């Protein structure tokens, strides 16, 4: 017998899981809430880490930022795995179409040599910087506290890897494997890249997850993405006839637009929590964005020459304004 | 020789894949279970892109296997054309 179960009207016994009712009231919870709140073990942890016996397995004191409730650091995009993955899958379809378009029309070969050189010189070494970003966000996810804060960092880390891979493909398409080798050489040895490489390596030994968030996602990305993808790719290269490059980096531009809203939201909530947090964040944002700005100057010079100082200066001012808007006085 | 296996979800998408695996591995034993098809083979199992494409009538990227994969055993060797599972004993 086929039972038509849809026609049965039965009364649910409850609306949501207890911990969500406690947080959000007695009503159905969203999938973001179900997948994010209170899902990290909180009490009665069994053993101290053998790698850091002075710490706890999940330890909010690894950072100087203090939160009454770490779950307050909500992701405004409300990304959980599914919404994140579906969003990126759509974007990768566009990216794929863009790469295919550039390739099938031979647009890469039609680029003026000098612009192609600039594109390769600036963009290819950045795949290593993106790998650095991946390392940092993986770290924040691993050692940060509270899922609403840490889960977007894992997504961010995978995005950083995806960006490194798109930059590698761009190198292969505009150049060849030689272009990737030359880019790595430049990253390791060329004077223009050393301040940035040093910045990334210094971040590799930072073990305060929130400071790392500021150094990478606020300060460095906050300057690098607008400078490279807006100022250099969109304005400098496209205007001169290399709009094919912008097609290949559309993912990065869209990605920065989307993710900065999350980054700002995290800063805003953390800063609003206390005077102490504001002080700490002020110190971090100030020193890391100054360092990031000076590391970006020689990189921007590769494309803009003498205009680099001014471009970086403008961007630093814009970043400062952006940070101030989150409630951190600079 | 030890047994290797691959288990796939039982659905329309995997039907041609399973047929291709049977063609390439005549020694394999196909076990159909609820919602799952498990294919056992002695020592080695080879999954070939070209055979799947013939069964499917379209291009197939071997990584598409991940969508309906449930489990596998053995050492995995993957290239553009084949995915091989084997035990060294």
């Amino acid at each position, binding site marked *: 017998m086929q039972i038509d179960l849809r026609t049965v009207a039965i009364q649910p016994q409850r609306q949501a899981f207890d911990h969500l009712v406690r947080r959000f009231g007695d009503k159905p919870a969203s999938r973001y809430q179900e997948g994010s709140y209170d899902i990290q073990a909180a009490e009665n942890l069994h053993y101290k880490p053998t790698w850091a016996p002075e710490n706890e397995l999940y330890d909010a004191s690894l950072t100087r930022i203090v939160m009454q409730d770490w779950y307050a650091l909500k992701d405004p995009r409300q990304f959980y795995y599914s919404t994140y993955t579906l969003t990126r899958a759509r974007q990768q379809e566009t990216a794929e179409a863009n790469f295919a378009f550039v390739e099938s029309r031979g647009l890469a070969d039609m680029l003026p040599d000098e612009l192609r050189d600039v594109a390769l010189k600036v963009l290819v070494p950045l795949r290593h910087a993106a790998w650095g970003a991946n390392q940092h966000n993986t770290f924040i996810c691993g050692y940060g506290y509270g899922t609403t804060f840490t889960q977007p960092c894992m997504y961010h880390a995978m995005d950083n890897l995806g960006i490194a891979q798109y930059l590698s493909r761009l190198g292969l398409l505009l150049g060849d494997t030689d272009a990737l080798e030359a880019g790595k050489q430049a990253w390791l040895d060329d004077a223009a890249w050393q301040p940035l490489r040093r910045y990334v390596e210094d971040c590799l030994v930072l073990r305060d997850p929130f400071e790392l968030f500021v150094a990478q996602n606020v300060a460095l990305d906050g300057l690098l993405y607008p400078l490279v993808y807006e100022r250099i790719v969109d304005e400098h290269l496209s205007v001169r006839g290399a709009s094919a490059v912008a097609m290949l980096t559309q993912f990065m531009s869209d990605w920065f637009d989307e993710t900065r809203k999350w980054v700002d939201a995290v800063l805003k909530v953390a800063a609003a929590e206390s005077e102490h947090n504001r002080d700490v964040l002020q110190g971090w944002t100030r020193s890391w964005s100054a360092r990031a700005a000076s590391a970006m100057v020689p990189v921007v010079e590769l494309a803009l020459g003498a205009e680099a100082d001014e471009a970086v200066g403008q961007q630093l001012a814009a970043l400062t304004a952006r940070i101030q808007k989150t409630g951190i006085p600079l | 020789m030890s047994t290797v296996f691959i288990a796939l979800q039982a659905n329309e998408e995997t039907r041609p894949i399973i047929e291709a695996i049977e063609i390439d591995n005549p020694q394999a034993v196909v076990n159909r279970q609820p919602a799952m098809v498990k294919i056992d083979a002695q020592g080695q199992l080879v999954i070939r892109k070209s055979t799947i494409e013939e069964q499917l009538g379209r291009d197939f990227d071997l990584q598409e296997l991940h969508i309906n994969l*449930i489990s596998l055993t053995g050492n995995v060797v993957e290239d553009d054309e084949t995915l091989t599972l084997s035990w060294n004993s």
Partner: protein
Amino acid sequence: MDMKVAKKKLGLKEKYRALTRDLGWDTTYQPKDAVFPYVGYEGIKIHDWDKWEDPFRLTMDAYWKYQAEKERKFYAIIDAHAQNNGHLNLTDARYLSALKIFLQAISPAEYASHKGFARTGREFPGVGTQVACQMQAIDEIRHAQTQIHAMSNYNRYYNGFHAFADTRDRIWYTSVARSFFDDAMSAGPFEFMIAIGFSFEYVLTNLLFVPFMSGAAYNGDMATVTFGFSAQSDEARHMTLGLECIKFMLEQDPDNLPIVQNWIDKWFWRGFRVLGLVSTMMDYMLPKRVMSWREAWDIYGVENGGALFKDLARYGIKPPKGWDDAEKAIDHMSHQFMLGLYQWSFGTAFHSWIPSEEDMNWLSAKYPDTFDKYYRPRWKHIKKLADAGTPFKNYGLAKLCQTCQLPTVFTEPDDPTLTCHRQSVYKGQKYHFCSDGCQHVFDNEPEKYVQAWLPMPQLFQEPINGDLGAWMEWVSLRDGKDNGDYAGSEDQRNFEAWRGLATTNQ
């Protein structure tokens, strides 16, 4: 000017090298030990991280594409299941006990695994290894979330699901899985990989997911089948990572062998104990059974595990130390567990029950050497007490094993009539164990296992002080609803009433 030179077509491996493996570099502004501070202290020697063989060479674009396809399918089914009262398709609501245990003990483990792999995804110095770990880290949060989402609809209609975030940290039986994952996460990165990547994923998860999900399919639970198989499709990558990792350690330096062997011994036994709960789910909790725990063990334990250890013998690896004891326990453990769960069912946020005559006949067919001889008589006795209105309850505290945290309900490997009990003394304190395997684990690292949080003594400490009602409140267990015998429970009454509505015209 036509300088068009045909580009080299890169094969899968070269392409992966160019796009992924080549992204890392040797740092010069910061020393390697400061960048990777935890990779050395376990004593594992790695000479060349470039020798790492990537098990699957997925780049992010492919990852997003294929995973999105899985996600779309999964949520379509979950949505339909919720909208169409899919829960009424279950063979019987007692089946839900298995899911309640799953949500309280396994889903939090998925999350722990997510965190652990994020850490190894940063701590290993090789790009290939890191990326594989990172993908597992993001997959594991997927598993935690898809499981919570799949069970969310059951929570709306049935008891026992509502407090999983509380029971995870406080109730006694979840401590078994929690202590396993806490143990792995508190270990160094290489041991973590053996614990989770190899022992749990490779040797044991097939036992957890495959027969269990087939069981869900047999019992009309499409929500669980879907999250199970969907998770398992990632598991195939994870298992291969686990296998790759162990081979890599063994190939890099012969000195790694004894360390790795020791971990295999430890983690096989730890995993075997955690999965003991699965034996009970399979043999007792599925109203319609797909195969017995013994049959699953023969396929996924003996045949697969056997093949695996035969393969690894070329490196000098021997099957895990506890293998023979495990084999001897297979025909007993599900019965011993279920008897334990039944007598302590006042303290579980799921139901247990006395198996029916028909259930018992199935069990004796599947366990011809043990069931009728040792366990049917005990069930019969318990049934008699229940029929007389004096159901058997053990309000005494279970003695928990200091290592695996299970009550010491198991018998001696060679004498099923004798409860196995071991003890060790460390710094003047006595510690209890359920088995030789657990005692060995403790004796190798007593300073770690003395730290274990034991949920039973908690009952006698602040703020509970031996008050059972206060304890129930503290673990968010609602007496008379979440716990006790399935017979007469609210879940049973509701399910039958709702099914009645669906099958009649009232």
